């Protein structure tokens, strides 16, 4: 344990652990309280499988579809990793809805926890953005035309619609530029943003604790 003591003197991590681990848990909580934690578990699964997928994916117009085919046919466990990413993403949306429903029904977003809910609403929006941008990446028939419809919806905004749509697409139409843009969003911009909002969400819940006695 000398190594642990050495590190602890310099990093002081046991103090931090003890604060979290020794925290008393309110009475009367039940398994409905777990939905948020399950959502986070799925998020971590998505990070891990996403990191693995990024090793084999090419975000370019001519190669994206081929790289998915290669992933399925040549990469060991390729289909399985993609399937796990797919299912964790779908289940994450389900669990977020259940988590929000639980918080709503028990009125847990009330003072002093209003901002927990606000940060959580942004997390929902970010998760859906992950879903939308990720849907294009296989660059197949379904992905392409769904993105055409989705970005046309952005175009319907009065006055600034065509500007917003070209910002999202990286041009007047869905093209290889859109693919690169969605890829960048999906693996860089959105993860950074969601990390910030997750930190806020968790920091606040650690400060106030969860509501007890359902």
């Amino acid at each position, binding site marked *: 344990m000398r190594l642990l003591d050495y590190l602890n003197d310099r990093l002081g991590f046991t103090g931090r652990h003890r604060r*979290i*681990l*020794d*925290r*008393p*848990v*309110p*009475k*009367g909580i039940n398994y409905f309280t*777990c939905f948020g*934690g*399950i959502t986070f*578990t799925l998020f971590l*699964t998505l990070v891990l499988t996403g990191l693995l997928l990024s090793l084999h994916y090419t975000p370019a117009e001519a190669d994206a*579809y081929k790289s*998915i085919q290669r992933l*399925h046919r040549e990469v060991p466990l390729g289909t*399985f990793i*993609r*399937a*796990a990413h*797919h*299912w*964790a993403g*779908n*289940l994450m*949306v389900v669990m977020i809805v259940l988590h929000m*429903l639980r918080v*709503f*029904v*028990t*009125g*847990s*977003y*009330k003072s*002093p926890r209003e901002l927990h*809910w*606000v940060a959580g*609403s942004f997390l*929902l*929006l970010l998760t859906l953005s992950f879903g*939308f941008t990720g*849907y294009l990446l*296989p660059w*197949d*028939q*379904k*992905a*392409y*035309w*769904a993105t055409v*419809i*989705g970005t046309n*919806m*952005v175009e*319907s*905004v009065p006055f600034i619609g065509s500007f917003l749509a070209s910002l999202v697409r990286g041009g007047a139409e869905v093209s290889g530029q859109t693919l690169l843009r969605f890829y960048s969003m999906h693996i860089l911009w959105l993860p950074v943003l969601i990390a910030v909002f997750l930190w806020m969400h968790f920091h606040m819940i650690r400060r106030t604790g969860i*509501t*007890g*006695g359902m």
Partner: protein
Amino acid sequence: MRTTKSDKTFFPYYFFEITVIALFTIEAVLILAVLFPPAIGREIDFSAQFSPRPEWYFLFLYELTKFFPGKWTFVGAVLLPGIGFSVLLLAPFLDSGGERSLKKRPVAAAVGFGLLASVIGLTMLSLL
């Protein structure tokens, strides 16, 4: 705040349960991944527009836009979802009374479940 403190601490009591639930969650993902993997899609054919179906959690939005054709697209695509999201975002400020029990928050319950029912309803409509 009615936070009745129990004598149980997070570690090890709840830590154990949370670990078990996290493992079940990952297991569910792995089982679904083995049983129902997504297929490789068809290659893009720019000449033939085919009607795609968005991911299931966007179906309600897709269905909503069908009610507002032409120059009204904006209402279904941006305005109504925007209002819906704003209500969701501001829920704790709109529903700010001291009562936590849903039975004593009839307006909040009506609005909340109304919103949920319309999203579910539109999704079902789109699946028909």
